[in-house]
């Protein structure tokens, strides 16, 4: 049996780390600052799993989330990683 990888659980939407350039253009597009974004904690299991998988620290980064089961087909959301 494989090791439990929560990123593959049905309820976990796809989390994508935005590159620094993408972050800038995203913030510009919506004309907002990081502090006005929805948050996700560094202690969040998904963030921990991503950090391990990518081997980087994510505090201060912006995560793009692709949500299934949306009236739009796919819903797009962003969260700012905080402690």
């Amino acid at each position, binding site marked *: 049996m494989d090791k439990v990888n*929560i990123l593959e*659980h049905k*309820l976990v939407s796809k989390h994508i780390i935005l590159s620094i350039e993408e972050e800038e253009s995203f913030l510009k597009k919506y004309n907002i600052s990081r502090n006005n974004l*929805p948050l*996700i*904690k560094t202690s969040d*299991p*998904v963030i921990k799993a991503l950090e391990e998988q990518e081997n980087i620290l994510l505090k201060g980064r912006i995560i793009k989330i692709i949500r299934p089961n*949306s009236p739009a087909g796919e819903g797009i959301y962003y969260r700012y990683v905080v402690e």
Partner: protein
Amino acid sequence: MASDEFILERLDAILHYKVSDAIMDESKKKLIDYNANVHEFTEAEVEIIANDIVLEYDKARVDPGEPVGTVSAQSLGEPGTQMTLNTFHYAGVAEINVTLGLPRIIEIVDVRKDPSTPVMTIALDEENKYSRDNAIMVARRIEGTTVENVARQTALDVINTEFHVYLDSERIEDAGLVMEDIIKKLKKVKAIERIRYDEDENTIIMSLGDISLFKLRRFSQKIKILPLKGIKGIERAMIKKEGDEYFVYTEGSNFADVLEIPGVDYKLAMTNNIYEIYEVLGIEAARNSIIEEIQNVLDEQGLEVDRRHIMLLADAMCLEGDIQQIGRHGITGEKASVLARASFEVTTGHLLEAAREGEKDRLTGVTENVIVGQPIPLGTGTVDLVMKVIDEDNKEA
């Protein structure tokens, strides 16, 4: 006549970024279907229809300033008066009861860490999901078995301060245990001085040394509920066939541990305990789960509420990276406005805190502006009318 390629190409070109993916996909499917079966479109017709889809989509958009929060709150609150208070049978298995209706909705928005009826629906992996025997095996791994569960009878020997457990071989086998396991487990209990197995009687006898009767009784109760195997928090596990697959349903929930059980398809295992989902799978999964759980209750009650309202509620609850309660200790309690907080609950507490912290109320919310008697900053209140005053001295300008 318009070819399928033409239809796809034009829809892609015209609808792109103007409508949602869902509508894009549906348009393609419907147009091609219609083209093939009902009426062959001319190219001009395709253009017109594609443009009209964009137009109609724009017509259906929310207006800026729309108080969507209030509408969501009302859309979820109003049907509350029509919901039942009863606990109903679980849709899956008749034997498991689950709280539904208004109490369940309240439980969800309260973010109760221990919901009144936690249950799990556990899918099995390829190896186990088609076989009844395998499914039962997995269920046994999950279900907790206590000493009491495998005993025919228990007795206290007051004179020798002993506790006798008369075992039931059949039950031991049912639970997938062997004698050695049980004795091993019992040996780990510190209070037991000596442990003996009487094969003729099929009885385990535990000596406890010199202790009072009261203590002996208390101890025996503790031994009775000593878990021999299974997962903490799960009281019962049952299997049920759906289609050609077996699922395990449990009363009680322990999401983290169940995911690790061999035979379980951890990608599809579900619990109705939202807080557990938050702890194990994170905020986004919790948000999805809040939506599904609320939707589930409303569906069961036959009440229609647009999914967008539930989504907004869930997003509001998950805004800060953890699940916030709807109420004093959550969203409302952390509002920036002093007046809004004070008018909700614990009025003086919020006023005193505001004074101490020297807070400023910027009057950006609804309640604050109602309190001071100003138009609220929603809907038509988001825009101001600016009128050019004619300067009497410079009429020409």
